[in-house]
């Protein structure tokens, strides 16, 4: 591992490697990525693999719309030797309450302002899109065809390989133990494999983002929250779109591989770093999904696991630096949608760090927004 670097990125998830790649692509090639286990071993490799643009706030919307365009050509752009398995089967968001439906209508009017062609569906129309959907009590649904699925391991692998070709070093099984500062600026990073001199650090540590910020003496309102998930055996294709119900705190999608990936949010989950899987999740998931999508009752679960969302108070990421410490940058607080935003996160963070004009106004989602009271309050998170 090198002893100094122009930029040190902490975290070998999809965001960390995307940032490293975009920096190198813009000529900043002396970049070192530090990962305490292996690439995508944290939240990236544990996520639901969904790619959604149907958000309810401006920055999530704009970042996800631009990210989808990047996913569409990523195999070629990154010259990937495998396939990122991007499938645009759409997302059908279902509302089983009037309040939920009212929120959807507000979201859609905002989504259309940013050019997203989202369809408002009555129950019969929803059933045309997903014929096995239980429409008992369904008030309405929204559908966007260009949402979908992508393979998080392969996207991370694609960025990592492209970054390495440009000279980025990725050091796995290397844990950050401290951040060295002097006179209000970063001067180095300590790891269990030795120290690195650097004046620029990027915190892309996901659920561990607040711990890394603490090492630099910065308090950030980000906390880890366990979310559980399961995958079934692969079966013949029967469901194109992701089905997502905020009323049931549930999402469920069939991947191009044939397996179904599904998860639940638990509103009673306490902050914490545990990613233990529980039988209670398995039971609740099975009960809810077999009600919502009855034919799934005959499909076998092969595996369940859990991962960490890195939550912020407004469920919107924190991108950018802080006046408290020069050279300390953050791409954290993705609140469960870090994978799908990663292509734009990489570009925006690279532009920001290199002092270039940013493609989107990321100053709106900096750490300072909490002090300014300019929050985004994303309504659409499971």
């Amino acid at each position, binding site marked *: 591992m090198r002893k100094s670097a122009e930029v040190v990125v902490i975290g070998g998830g999809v965001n960390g490697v995307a940032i490293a790649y975009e920096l190198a692509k813009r000529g900043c090639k002396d970049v070192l990525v530090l990962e305490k286990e*292996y*690439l*995508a*071993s944290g939240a990236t*490799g544990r996520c639901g693999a969904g790619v959604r643009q149907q958000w309810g706030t401006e920055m999530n919307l704009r970042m996800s719309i631009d990210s989808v365009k990047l996913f569409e050509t990523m195999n070629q752009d990154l010259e990937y030797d*495998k396939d990122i398995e991007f499938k645009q089967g759409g997302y059908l968001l279902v509302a089983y309450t009037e309040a939920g439906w009212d929120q959807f209508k507000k979201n859609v009017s905002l989504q259309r302002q940013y050019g997203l062609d989202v369809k408002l569906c009555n129950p019969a129309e929803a059933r045309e899109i997903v014929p096995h959907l239980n429409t008992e009590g369904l008030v309405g649904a929204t559908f966007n065809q260009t949402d979908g699925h992508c393979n998080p*391991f*392969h996207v991370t*692998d694609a960025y990592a390989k492209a970054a390495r070709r440009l000279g980025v070093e990725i050091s796995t099984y290397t844990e950050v133990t401290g951040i060295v500062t002097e006179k209000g600026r970063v001067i180095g990073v300590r790891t269990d494999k030795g120290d690195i001199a650097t004046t620029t650090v990027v915190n892309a540590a996901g659920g561990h983002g607040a711990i890394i910020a603490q090492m630099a003496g910065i308090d950030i309102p980000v906390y880890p929250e366990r979310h559980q998930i399961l*995958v*079934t*055996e*692969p079966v013949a294709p029967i469901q194109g779109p992701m089905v997502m119900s905020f009323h049931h705190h549930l999402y469920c999608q069939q991947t191009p*591989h044939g397996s179904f990936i599904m998860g639940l949010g*638990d*509103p*009673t989950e306490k902050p914490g770093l545990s990613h233990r*899987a529980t*039988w*209670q999740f*398995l*039971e*609740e*998931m*099975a*009960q809810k*999904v*077999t009600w919502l999508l009855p034919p*799934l*009752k*005959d*499909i*076998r*679960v*092969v*595996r*369940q*696991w859990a991962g960490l969302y890195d939550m912020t108070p407004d469920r919107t990421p924190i991108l950018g630096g802080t006046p408290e410490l020069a050279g300390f940058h953050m791409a954290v607080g993705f609140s469960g949608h870090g994978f799908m935003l990663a292509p734009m996160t990489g570009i925006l963070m690279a532009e920001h760090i290199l002092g270039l004009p940013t493609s989107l106004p990321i100053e709106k989602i900096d750490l300072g927004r909490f002090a300014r009271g300019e929050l985004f309050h994303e309504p659409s998170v499971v």
Partner: protein
Amino acid sequence: MYDKDREIIICRCEDLTLADIKELINKGYRSLDELRRISRCGMGPCQGRTCRPLVQRELQSVGIPVKDQIPGIFRPPSKPITLGAIARGSEGVHHA
């Protein structure tokens, strides 16, 4: 050219051959978890019960003794089970 490694199946669930595994190991995927995530080896219905020792042997053959290999994780459930059976088994139990 005939390559017998292309005819030896290591992962029956995902149709991965010995040649596939060797190629990935040569590319630098050097642990059970990394191989699993890039290739789905061990992610099928058998959950690695067939392929895992075979992959460990291949990692050993490139100089990583089994004792030094980071063990992979066995995740629940221990056998594939239908969503319907789980839902029926927990009927009457109401979750939040």
